[in-house]
Structure formats: C-alpha cells, structure tokens
C-alpha cells in the first residue's frame, strides 16, 4: 500500500462522532457469536513466567490437529492478569466459564479432547477448595472471585488489552463520548467530586477536590495545565497498577482523557516504572490504537477537543512516586522532591498547574462518568466510597489481586478471599501501605479496610499492598527490611531521611543481634518522631511507620530479642541455631549436599547433624529438607 493510501485509510478509521463510536460498538457486538467457544489464556506477568505463552501455542496446534468443525474452532485470547496469580497459568473456556488452573503445555491435548470434543470438564485441572476439597468447575463459583466486586478490574481477564475493539465492544470510551457531548467540563468535575472518589495511591486525597483546586489555579494562572498518571507503583508487594495498565490500558487512558477534558488540558503524561515493560508496551499500543480511531489526538470524536499523551519510563527510583520528584523526573532531572508549600495543582510540572492521580484512581473515572456519582458513592463505606484493589501476598494461600468494596473487615480479605495462611493457623500480622504503612496484628482482624480506619490503627491504605505474615516471620526483621529498602531508595537530599533511616536501621540491626536496651527503644521512638517531623517529603516522613507500628503491637517480640537474646520467629541469624531432629531425619543427605559450608555430617540413611560452630545460618538445609527434620530455635 502506498503511503498516501495508508494515510487515507487511517483517516477513514477515525470516528467522527459519538454516533460513529456507537455504530462501531454495535457492529463489534454483532460480529461476536455468544456461543462460539473461546479459550482465554492469562498473559499477566505471573502466568507468563509460569509458561502461559507455551500453553497458548500448544492449544493452537492441538486445535488445528483435532479436526474440530469450523463452527466450534475456538478463538484463543491472550488477556491481562486474572488476579489469581498463585494458580497460574490460568485457562478459562467460554462460554461455559470452565476454569483450569496450573495448566501446562502437556495438558492441552486433554483439554481439547475432553472439553472441546466431548464437552466435559478436565477434573484434575479444576480448582479445589482448600477447605472442603471439592472441585469447583466455574470461574464465578471460586471463593477468590465470588466475593469480589470488580469495578476497576471488570475488563481484566476478559479483553485482549492489545485490541481496542475488545474494549469498545464492552463499552470502552462510552463515558468519554457522554462527557464530550452531554456534559460541560465543570459537570465532569462535579460528578467526580460527588462520587467521593479518593486517591488510590497513598494518602487518599479527594480527587474531585483536587480537580476543583486545579480549576481555581487555572483561573489565576491560565493554561497550559497538565494531567499526569502516576504509574510508578513502587511499594514492594503491590502490583494492582501494573495489572490495570497491562490488562485494561484503555480504562487508564479514557480516565485521563476525561480528566483532560474536565480541566482543559491538551497534554498528558503517563509515568510508568521501568520494571513494568509489559505495561509500557500495552499502554503504547493502546495509545496508537486510540489515536487511529480518533479517540486521542486532534479533535477527539469530532468534538473539537484535542488532547495527547506521552509515556515516560521511570529509571529505577522509588522516590519518583512522590509527586514533586515525579515531575522533576519528567523534566529530565534527578528525582529529588521539593518542599510542597505550594501545591502541585498550582505549581507542578514545569511550574504549571498539574493534576497527578494514580493509575487506579484514573481507571475509576470512566465508570463514575458512565454510571453516575450516586452509583459509585453507593459502593463501599461512607467516607471511603467505591472499591479498592488489593494485592494479597506473602503467607497466604491465594496470592493474587482482589477487588472489594471499601470497608470490609481485614479478616474477610485475608481469610475468605485469600484462603488464610497455609497450614491453617491464624495470620500473625498484615502489613498494609507498603514501606509507609504499618503492621496490623491478628487482634485487629475486624478493622474495616478503609482510608480512615487504617490510619487510625497506625497504618495506611497506601496503594493497597497486603503482606500476610505468619508466626515464622519476625517483626524486627520486617522493620529492618523496610528501613533497608527506604535507606536504599532515599534520594539523599534532606538530612533526617538520608541519615535518620540509616541510623534507625542500625539500631534495629543491633536489636536483631540481641544488643540494646529498653532505653534504646525509647531513643529510637524519639528519633522516629524527629524524622516524621523533619523530613522533606513523605518518603522520609512516613519511613518510621513500620518501626513504630511493630513497636506498638509487638513490643514483646523486640524485648525477647534484647532481653532474652531470642528471636521467637527463628529469623534473626545472630540469635538462632539450626539442628536436625534425629527422629525425622531419613539420612537422605539432601541437606549435606546443599550446605555451602559443608558443615552437615552423617552417613547415608542415618540421622545427620549440623556443626553449629561452622554453621552460617543460611537456612539452605531447611529449604532442601523434604521431611521437616531441620529445626530452628
């Protein structure tokens, strides 16, 4: 095709009005045959690593070889993350909704024969309820999904994120059309404000109020104004934003365009961390496809409104999730925060009024516009409306992403959806809010998970990471972990953060070796207050939270370290010893082979022993033992 022709064709594809969009949507729906089988293969980061591309490839081949009738040849659809990452690779067979877990390429012949040809479920690939041990056939009946309320994640796992038509068929960009042709920009802002939506990235600032302040600033300072997506999801243990960007990039894009329309912005930025290559790829494809259809760029849907956006990749700095550091990074400099005595809605990117919201926040906006603020405000808790996506990780049976109405009790998330701790014991603590958050003990299991209740308990919502810990996890170790993390990620500009986090970590290192006294704990608390008060930005200001909450709820465990020189969880190396239970040891020699110190001795089929003097307490013996014969005290 000649260049001119190609351009002419691209021109043809542009939708010139809301009616064009609706016509395209109707056409796409008609083209779909609801009875045609479709095999969905999850291609989220988790399933990809566990081999989902090989599964999809094998399925294609097996179907071709099976000689199925043309009418039943299913389409194979690669989708974004289904959220149930601990069970991947996941395969769902539609229209029935059969749910297969941990599928390998070697399983596909059986799936084709049993399910596609004979119409039966492959029993051994079904999910089994960990309590009742019963096999569950359908996706929607699995407790992990059944108790969710999917608003932000509604398209994820259902659409192919690299095909805009899939999203349009499911109602994508309808909210944009509604706003452009039936609402004034002020009405869009008002709708978002009435919905009660609060920022999903950290402190939970009301989104509508932020937009309103931006409008006021624009009145004073004029335009340009910028809209920015904070996709620098840095909290360890949080991956909901990655999943949204990978699995439903158009929701983020549509939200951003709506914000741009509301504020009169013509340029936007998507700041995405470099560790998320698939998210960057899917967003880039989404932008290209939206531009080709006239949903982004000049004269969107023929409305006269123009807006475009570019992707900025992060370069490996946690602090760039902080608004002023993020702006500095987009401007091309080292991401050091600036004091925020003037808010970024007034002076943000290049000193201009700027609205920065997190990925999940933007992705909520289209549905608020489409379904109305009342619908949204009816979800969740009074002061924390809507739903929230959480990533459940750590010592929990069902690792993955869940979306629930705000305000449900902590234990419901961990136990009902997460299936509790492996082995059935109660959880010891749940860390929420990442390095800025805190550790909630089991005794607070009934705490409603909303912005205000978590803050009251000394933690915070943060981006929604939930790290479940059991009795084998040590709180002193967790405090040291977060301090080390923040020490490495501190930009180093202000003294309380640069030096203070390091010194807090050194004090906790001392505790983990059994050094220190109760007076040192008091000093640590005093230093923590100085860091909270004195730090330049929220990274430093909230850095003491993991220490302070573990001290608040688990002081006994700290005292066990410094007073009794014991680590009850068996984690802190200076205070533990490994030994082998003679009754359980079968003499298989796996530990002796794995030991890097070669300090485990014993004859084949006879109990082994560890030479404590030479042991470096690396724990490899324990990991390699299949008989739980290695103990730690």
């Amino acid at each position, binding site marked *: 095709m000649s260049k001119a022709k190609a351009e002419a064709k691209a021109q043809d594809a542009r939708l010139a009005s809301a009616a064009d969009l609706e016509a395209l949507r109707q056409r796409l729906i008609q083209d779909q045959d609801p009875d045609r089988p479709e095999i969905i293969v999850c291609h989220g980061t988790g399933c990809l690593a566990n081999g989902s591309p090989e599964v999809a490839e094998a399925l294609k081949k097996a179907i071709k070889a099976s000689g199925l009738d043309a009418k039943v040849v299913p389409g194979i659809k690669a989708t974004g993350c289904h959220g149930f990452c601990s069970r991947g690779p996941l395969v769902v067979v539609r229209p029935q909704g059969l749910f297969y877990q941990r599928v390998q390429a070697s399983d596909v012949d059986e799936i084709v024969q049993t399910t596609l040809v004979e119409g039966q479920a492959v029993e051994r690939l079904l999910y089994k309820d960990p309590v009742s041990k019963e096999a569950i056939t359908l996706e929607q009946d699995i407790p992990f999904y059944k108790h969710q309320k999917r608003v932000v994640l509604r398209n994820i796992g259902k659409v192919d994120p690299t095909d805009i038509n899939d999203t349009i068929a499911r109602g994508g960009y309808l909210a944009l059309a509604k706003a452009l042709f039936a609402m004034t920009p002020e009405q869009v802002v008002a709708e978002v404000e009435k919905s009660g939506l609060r920022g999903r990235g950290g402190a939970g600032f009301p989104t509508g109020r932020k937009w309103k302040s931006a409008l006021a600033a624009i009145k004073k300072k004029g335009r340009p104004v910028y809209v920015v997506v904070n996709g620098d999801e840095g909290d*360890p243990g949080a*991956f909901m934003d990655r999943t949204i960007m990978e699995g439903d990039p158009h929701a983020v894009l549509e939200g951003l365009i709506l914000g741009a329309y509301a504020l009169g912005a013509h340029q936007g930025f998507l700041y995405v961390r*470099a*560790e998320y290559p698939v998210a960057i790829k899917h967003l880039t494809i989404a932008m290209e496809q939206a531009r080709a259809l006239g949903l982004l760029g000049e004269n969107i849907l023929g409305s006269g409104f123009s807006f475009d956006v570019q992707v900025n*990749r992060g370069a490996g700095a946690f602090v760039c999730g902080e608004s002023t550091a993020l702006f500095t990074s987009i401007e*091309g*400099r080292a991401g050091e925060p600036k004091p925020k005595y003037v808010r970024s809605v007034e002076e943000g990117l290049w000193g201009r009024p700027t609205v920065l919201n997190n990925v999940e926040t933007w992705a909520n906006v289209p549905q608020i516009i489409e379904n109305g603020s009342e619908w949204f405000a009816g979800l969740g808790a009074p002061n924390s409306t809507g739903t929230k996506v959480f990533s459940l*990780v750590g010592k929990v049976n069902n690792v993955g992403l869940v979306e629930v109405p705000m305000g449900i009790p902590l234990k419901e998330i961990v136990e009902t959806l997460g299936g509790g701790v492996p082995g059935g014991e109660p959880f010891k603590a749940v860390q929420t809010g990442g390095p800025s958050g805190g550790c909630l003990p089991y005794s607070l299991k009934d705490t409603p998970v909303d912005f205000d209740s978590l803050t009251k308990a000394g933690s915070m919502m943060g981006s929604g990471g939930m*790290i479940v810990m059991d009795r084998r996890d040590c709180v002193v170790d967790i405090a040291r972990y977060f301090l080390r*993390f923040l020490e490495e990620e501190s930009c180093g500009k202000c003294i309380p953060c640069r030096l203070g986090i390091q010194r807090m970590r050194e004090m906790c290192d001392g505790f983990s070796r059994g050094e220190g006294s109760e007076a040192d704990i008091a000093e640590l608390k005093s230093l923590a207050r100085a860091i909270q008060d004195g730090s330049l930005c929220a990274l430093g200001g909230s850095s003491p939270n993991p220490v302070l909450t573990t001290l608040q709820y688990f002081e006994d465990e700290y005292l066990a370290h410094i007073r009794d020189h014991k680590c009850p969880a068996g984690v802190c190396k200076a205070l533990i010893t490994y030994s082998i239970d003679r009754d359980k040891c079968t003499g298989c020699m796996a530990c002796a082979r794995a030991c890097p110190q070669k300090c485990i001795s014993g004859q084949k089929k006879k109990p082994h022993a560890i030479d404590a003097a030479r042991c470096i307490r690396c724990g490899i013996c324990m990991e390699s033992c299949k008989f739980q014969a290695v103990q730690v005290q």
Partner: protein
Amino acid sequence: MKPANIDLDEIIEHYPGRPDYLIFLLQDIQAAFNYISPEALQLVCDHTGVPLSQAYAVSTFYQSFSLEPKGEHEIKVCLGTACHLKGAPRLVEELERRLGVSPGGTTDDLKYSLETVNCLGACALAPVMVVDEKYQPSVTTKKLDKVLGELQQD
C-alpha cells in the same frame, strides 16, 4: 549480548534536542549498549544542552543506568516484601558465594552481573529472579543450579 551494530547517532537523533529528553536518551543508550560510555554521555549533553555535571548526576541517581559495562548475563533478584519473606536474602547470599560478587557487581570475566531490585510486582512467583529478562518463578537453591548451569553452557 546486545548487537554491536546499533548506531549511537541514530538513537540520539531520534529525540528532539531538549533537556526533558535526557532520561529517554540515557535509557535507550543503556538498553542498546548495556552501559553509558563517557563518549555517549558527552554526545547526549551536546544534543540536549544539559551540562555534563547534571547528566552525570542523573545517570548516577537512577538505578537503571550504569556507567560501566555490565556482564553478558544479568541476574536480578527481587527483594520485594513477599520475596523477602520467602527467602530472597538467602538467594542473594548464595549467588554472592557462587559468583564471587556483591549485588551491583560484575564478575571479572564480564560474564555475570548480579543486581537486586525492589519488587518486580510478581509477588505470586516469590521468590523471583530475572535472568536476562526472563522471569524465574519460585527459585530455590536447587533451581539456581539449573539456571546457572544453563547459562554456563551458553
């Protein structure tokens, strides 16, 4: 190994000569050459009008940039919270012992670079490491044998 036939000028000309494209340029150069040479950094400064001292500040601030050549194989161990709880520190120590380098280091024969990263957002795979951009889920010391063995044969 990255192909050596990538043209530095081509990367540089791809972006307008403005300071806000500094990070874009450094990222592309890092991706193409595995590090940013002094010559490349100077060319980027000439193109964007950023003083060398500031470009140097930026390239030492962000973790993705390296001013020294990296090893042929890059091993990144995730130190996210879930990975920490499931034994990532043990993995790092074991890799340090086997490769004889600390995180951030490259072996003398330029074969391996060992890095740690703060959460890849792949917590269901914990502990996870990425070897030459391929995710290795649920890594144990035993699995390490296999992965390193495969690299050795390359």
